C-alpha cells in the first residue's frame, strides 16, 4: 500500500505532476534524438572517410603501421580472406600492396605511394574509383595502367595516356622499375591522397616488386561500420591466428577519432548542463510537495509509520515520477529519431561543402541502446540520488513539530 500511496501522492496535484513529467519527457526525448543524431553523424563521417580508400578495418604485418616497409608482408592472404568471409559482418575483403616509389615524367619526378589493388575486390571497399574525374578507374583487365591523384598528376604534368616511369625497391632489395600508362586521375578531396597516391593493378605490382603473392594489407568492409566494430573480437582473434595486426577504424583514422572525442567532450558539457538544470527544477518541485505535506507526515508518524518508511515513500514518488516522465521521453525520442532515421535531415546550402569532404548532403540519426538510454538514465539516476535531500528532511521530522506546520 505504501507503493500505491506513493503513486497516488504524485497525482495529488495533477497539473504540477503533468508539467514535471512533460519537462522530463521533452528533455529525455531531446537527449535521445540529439545523441542519436550525433552518433549518426559520426558514423557517416567515419564511414565516408574510411570508404574513400582504407576500408572499415585492415590486417597488416605487425609493425607495418609504424614503419610501412614493403618487406613487412602478409604471406597467406588468400587463407586469411577465406576466414574473413566466414565472419558475418564482413561483406568483402581485398588484398593490397604498397610501396614508396619515385614517379617520373621526363625530368619531373615526385615521391609517391603506389598501391597495388585488385579491382575485382577493391571496388567493394574503396570509392576511389568513383572519384576518378578524368579518364577511367582501373578495371580488372588492366595490365600496365596507373591511376593518379589529381595533385600528383598536376605536379608531374601528366595527362591521360602519358607514360609514367616508376622506380622503387623490390621485396628482395632489387630495383623495381616499370613504365605505366596513365588511364585516370582521381580527386578524393583528401589532400594526402590526391598529392601522394597512385593505384596500379595488383598483379603488375606483384611482378614489379617481386612480391610472389605476398601483400601488405588486407582491407575489409561491411554493410555498416558498426557491424565491423561489433566483430572486433573475432577480427582480432583472426589477426592473432595469422600473426598479424588488426587495425580498427580508430587506428586507421586517428584524426577523425580525435575530432569525435573533442566534439563529444563539448557535447557532454552541454548535455550535462541540460540534465543538471532539469534535475534541479524537478527536484525543487518535488521538494515543495514534501514541504506541503509536513502536517500529513506528522499524522503518519503519529499513527506509527517510521520516519524511514515515510522517507522511502517520498523517494518512491520521485522514482515513479522520473520513470514515467523519462519513459514517455524515451518513447517520444525513439519515435522522432526513427522518423529522421528513415527520411534523414538535409542542411540546405551545405551540400557542396559536405561533398568536398566526401560527405553526403543528407544526415541520418542512428538510434542505439546507448543513445536511447544514457540521457534519460542520467536524469533518473540524478533524481534518485538527489532524492536523499527530501529523504533526509523527512528523517529529521518530529511528529508534534510536523503536525503543527
Amino acid at each position, binding site marked *: 500500500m505504501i507503493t500505491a500511496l506513493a503513486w497516488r501522492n504524485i497525482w495529488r496535484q495533477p497539473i504540477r505532476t503533468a508539467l514535471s513529467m512533460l519537462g522530463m519527457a521533452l528533455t529525455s526525448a531531446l537527449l535521445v534524438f540529439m545523441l542519436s543524431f550525433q552518433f549518426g553523424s559520426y558514423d557517416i563521417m567515419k564511414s565516408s572517410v574510411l570508404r574513400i580508400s582504407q576500408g572499415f578495418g585492415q590486417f597488416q604485418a605487425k609493425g607495418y603501421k609504424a614503419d610501412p616497409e614493403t618487406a613487412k608482408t602478409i604471406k597467406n592472404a588468400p587463407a586469411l580472406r577465406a576466414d574473413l568471409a566466414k565472419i558475418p559482418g564482413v561483406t568483402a575483403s581485398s588484398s593490397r600492396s604498397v610501396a614508396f616509389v619515385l614517379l617520373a615524367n621526363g625530368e619531373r619526378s615526385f615521391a609517391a605511394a603506389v598501391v597495388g589493388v585488385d579491382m575485382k575486390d577493391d571496388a567493394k571497399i574503396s570509392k576511389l574509383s568513383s572519384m576518378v574525374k578524368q579518364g577511367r578507374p582501373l578495371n580488372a583487365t588492366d595490365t600496365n595502367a596507373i591511376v593518379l591523384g589529381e595533385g600528383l598528376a598536376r605536379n608531374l604534368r601528366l595527362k591521360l595516356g602519358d607514360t609514367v616511369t616508376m622506380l622503387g625497391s623490390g621485396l628482395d632489395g632489387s630495383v623495381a622499375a616499370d613504365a605505366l600508362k596513365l588511364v585516370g586521375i582521381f580527386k578524393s578531396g583528401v589532400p594526402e591522397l590526391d598529392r601522394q597516391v597512385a593505384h596500379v593493378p595488383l598483379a603488375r605490382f606483384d611482378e614489379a616488386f617481386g612480391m610472389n603473392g605476398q601483400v601488405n594489407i588486407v582491407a575489409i568492409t561491411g554493410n555498416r561500420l558498426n557491424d565491423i566494430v561489433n566483430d572486433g573480437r573475432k577480427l582480432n582473434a583472426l589477426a592473432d591466428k595469422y600473426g598479424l595486426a588488426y587495425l580498427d577504424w580508430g587506428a586507421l583514422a586517428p584524426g577523425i577519432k580525435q575530432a569525435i572525442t573533442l566534439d563529444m567532450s563539448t557535447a557532454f558539457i552541454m548535455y550535462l548542463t541540460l540534465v543538471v538544470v532539469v534535475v534541479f527544477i524537478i527536484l525543487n518541485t518535488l521538494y515543495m510537495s514534501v514541504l506541503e505535506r509536513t502536517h500529513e507526515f506528522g499524522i503518519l*508518524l503519529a499513527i*506509527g509509520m517510521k520516519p524511514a518508511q515515510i522517507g522511502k515513500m517520498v523517494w518512491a514518488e520521485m522514482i515513479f515520477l522520473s520513470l514515467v516522465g523519462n519513459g514517455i521521453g524515451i518513447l517520444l525520442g525513439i519515435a522522432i529519431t526513427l522518423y529522421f532515421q528513415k527520411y534523414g535531415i538535409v542542411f540546405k546550402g551545405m551540400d557542396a561543402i559536405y561533398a568536398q569532404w566526401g560527405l553526403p548532403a543528407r544526415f541520418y540519426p542512428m538510434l542505439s541502446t546507448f543513445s536511447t538510454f544514457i540521457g534519460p538514465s542520467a536524469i533518473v539516476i540524478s533524481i534518485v540520488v538527489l532524492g536523499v535531500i527530501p529523504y533526509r528532511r523527512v528523517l529529521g521530522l518530529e*511528529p508534534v513539530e510536523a503536525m503543527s506546520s
Partner: protein
Amino acid sequence: MQPIVSCRGLTKTYGKGALSVQALREVDLEILPGDFATLAGPSGSGKTTLLNMIGALDKPTTGEVAIDGQALQSLNATALSDLRLHKIGFVFQSLNLIPVLSAQENIEFVLELQGRPSKERAERAREALKNVGLEGMEHRRPAALSGGQQQRVAVARALISNPAIVLADEPTANLDSKTALELISLMYRLNQENGTTFVIGTHDPRVMEHTKRHIELLDGKIANDTRR
C-alpha cells in the same frame, strides 16, 4: 491494577531564558485500563502538550512517562513509532486521514504497517467501518465524507490495532452539535463494549458530560481529577 499510562513529575518548557514558557509543571497522572477520561481546561492550560507526552509524540523536559509499563525516555524514534503503532490510537481535531486513500485503506494502512496479511487487513477494516456506522462507505475518499464521517473513520483507524489507549485531541472541535454527540456516543459505546481506554482532550462541555473521569488542567498543573 497496572496503569496504562503513568506520568511522574512531568514538566515541559518551550523556549529558553526569559522567553521560556512552562506548559506543564510537575504533572503526576495515572490512566487506568477502561478509563473514559476527559482532559479539560482552557486554551493554553497544557492539554495538548500532556496528550503529546502520553502519546509518545513529544518528550518531556523533565519527568517520566510509561505506557503499558514501558518507560519512553530510553526509546529512539523508531522504537517510539513502534510503540505508537501497537499501543496507541490517535484521533486529532481535523485532517486526520490520508486524502489519497479511501476510508477502508486509511484503516488498513495501520494494519499494513503492522505487517498483517492483505485478507485480514481488508476484513478487519470493513468490520471496523461497520462498527462506527460507515458500512457502504469503504471506498470513499476523505474528501467525499462529511466531517463527522471523517472523524468516525479516524476513530475506527485508532481502534483497529486494539491499542492500549486511544488519545483524542479536540475530536469534536470542527463538528456540529449533533455530529459531535454522535461521535462521543460512539467512543463511549466502544469504551463500554470493548473496554477501550480513551483520554479525550477537550473543552467541549458536551463531551465532558459523557465521561467517567474528568481531569482538569490549569496553567500546566492538574487542578482537579474526579471520577463519576
